[in-house]
């Protein structure tokens, strides 16, 4: 288990947990970040990264990448 922030580019991962306040968790869930979902990092620039989830490219920042545990 590690935050998505440390995942390698190109490797597919499974989301184990999403942390944060209920509001934030709900918003992330609405955007497709739910437990059990497959996720892969397409590119990373500093702490910001572009991930592929539920068939879409989604840009997230370091703060968000820390909340997603894979």
């Amino acid at each position, binding site marked *: 288990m590690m935050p998505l922030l440390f995942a390698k580019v190109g490797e597919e991962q499974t989301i184990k947990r999403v942390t944060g306040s209920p509001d934030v*968790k709900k918003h992330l869930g609405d955007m497709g970040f739910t437990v*059990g979902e497959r996720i892969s990092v397409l*590119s990373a620039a500093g702490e910001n990264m572009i991930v592929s989830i539920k068939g879409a490219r989604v840009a997230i920042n370091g703060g968000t990448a820390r909340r997603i545990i894979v």
Partner: protein
Amino acid sequence: MAIRIALAGNPNSGKTTLFNDLTGANAYVGNWPGVTVEKKEGRMKKQNDVILTDLPGIYSLSPYTPEEIVARNYLLEQSPDAILNIVDGTNLERNLYLTTQLLETGIPMVIAVNMMDVVRKNGDSINIAELGSRLGCKVIEISALKGEGTFAAAQAAVSAAKSGKKALPPKFSDKVESCISQIESSFGNMLPQSFGRWYAVKLFERDEKALEKLNPSGELRSRTEKQITDCEREMDDDSESIITNERYEFIAKTLRGCYKKKNAGGETVSDKIDRVVTNRILALPIFALVMFLVYKISIGTIGDWTVGFMNDTLFGEWIVPAATSGLEDLGCASWLVGLIADGIIGGVGAVLGFVPQLLILFLMLSILEDIGYMARVAFIMDRIFRRFGLSGKSFIPMLVSSGCGVPGIMASRTIEQERDRRMTIMTTCFVPCGAKMPIVGLIAGALFGGSAWVAVSAYFIGVAAVVVSGIILKKTKPFTGEPAPFVMELPAYHAPTAVNILRATWERGWSFIKRAGTVIVAASIVIWVLNSLTFEGGLHYIGEGDEKSLLNAIGEVIAVVFKPLGFGNWQAAVATVLGLVAKEEVVGTFGSLTSMANADLAMELVEAGDSSKLTLIGQEIFGGSGLAAYSFMIFNLLCAPCFAAMGAIKREMNNSKWTFAAIGYMCGFAYIVSLIVYRLGMLFTEGSFTVSTAAAFIAVAALIWLLVRRPSKSVKVKSAAGVTADA
């Protein structure tokens, strides 16, 4: 009775394209009450009794972003006769998430699966008939861009509205269903009749807005709370996550067997472009190049030429003289000719002069937006802007503001987070706009021998003001709190489409003309009146006379305020006030209030960079003090922007308290910075120490404290359900 149909869908699902296709030119753009999200309404082509409402693009109906709140309130409070839900066929799974929530409202619904042409090209297949029967509503294939199937979809929505057949909510697992039906029965009649299921699900999620509205008694509240916690314990998850997962599961079940992707997981063209464009090393240089080109073309070359033509030729040589002689021929009184020709037409002309330049700028930004690059820009800049409390999405407003603050403020609309949006509006006008550059040119020419460093320092001050304000404001109460997670879907790149681009350009341009035009007309009249009347020997019109106008008198009063800043004379005060109408006015005002006695000459000298003659202004206004002139420049760069921009701030803030706070902050910040620069400068160059110098030291200390102090505590959000949220 007209039939009302709401268009709902994810961002980038092609909703607006569909809306434009269905309504043609009949769109009416308004504003949603309470929030700054535009509402578009239009009558359907060839079917005037059908009104379409384009809801903002959303991923969910949970009240997280202003768009979500607007869409949700519209559906629940206005309850349209039918929903036309547009989904992106290339990404059904994600798009149907919103669909499951829309179905819960029970409003008759039709689903339009968009981008079918791309779906077919990719070799994917969707069993439309089967999908429709599983979702319990009509599903129609369309391609909004090509106009295929759009009218069939609209017709289906119309007949769904006429039949009034309620949409069926998605079925969840038994455990969740039993808990929801328990809630539904215990609330009974308290639930709004047609939205029973919707509210029951929201109560299960502990949705605060729903609880607020229903306001259940303490006993009912705790009974419901117990039912929810029981269910949570059983399913080992919190209720919101349970519902989110149930929705995705329902979608997966629905799509099983009727949706086939040919090459799932393969790298697309967009992925390849993104690998270069958002690359760790290349992202910033590519971005800088793109922005340089946009800026060069719209503000530089073509833009410059059009502004010159509009201001000097069209208005300066053709319209104003023609209007003047025309009115004189009609035998109008000279004051009326002055008011109409110089006051109103001249004032409006100053604003309209920017229109071609803005249209070019908007055109280029619309292209970048349409092909999908803008979304990447926000991503690239977020890394940098986050450091001083702004979001990556603040970059575009700031960039646009370097041309003109009005569209810059308007561009802040794309920022979902209200806090970030307000902060962007408050700081974006610090970036020196095109109209402030003549002031910089004047000061540089009049006192610094035309040194280019004055302009460089002006930009530096502007950017520093943004950064410092970001840090300071982020620590004040209204702006503290957990930074919003940056999550943004990046649309696939596609070739620009002419219709979309031209429409977006025109919409932005037109709202600029309309908004700026009205404020400017009013302000021009007021200033003209003040400048043309005098109290000396009774209130009367002075025209070209030399008597002291009301504006002079007011200038003398205001000048007292500017004494500590080093430019406490009435001319500088009047110039600052006139700068509120349009910042370019400052130069002309100095031209006419000094022995140069010619506003146009001053403008020409600044444009030509002829510093030898401008020193006259430096001597007469600032007594040859470079420091006083520099302080004047800082104040005018940072203080309240022109009326047009203030009008834009008011519109976008949509709240008079915040409007005053924003303008007050800008003026206060400008005053303090000017005070510090002038007084400390005087201390070091001439060793003068006065009360104001002491005040400047206090200001420095206060600024440092504001920058380094710990942020104030944010107001803790109380959960309406009586459970404490671990915020």
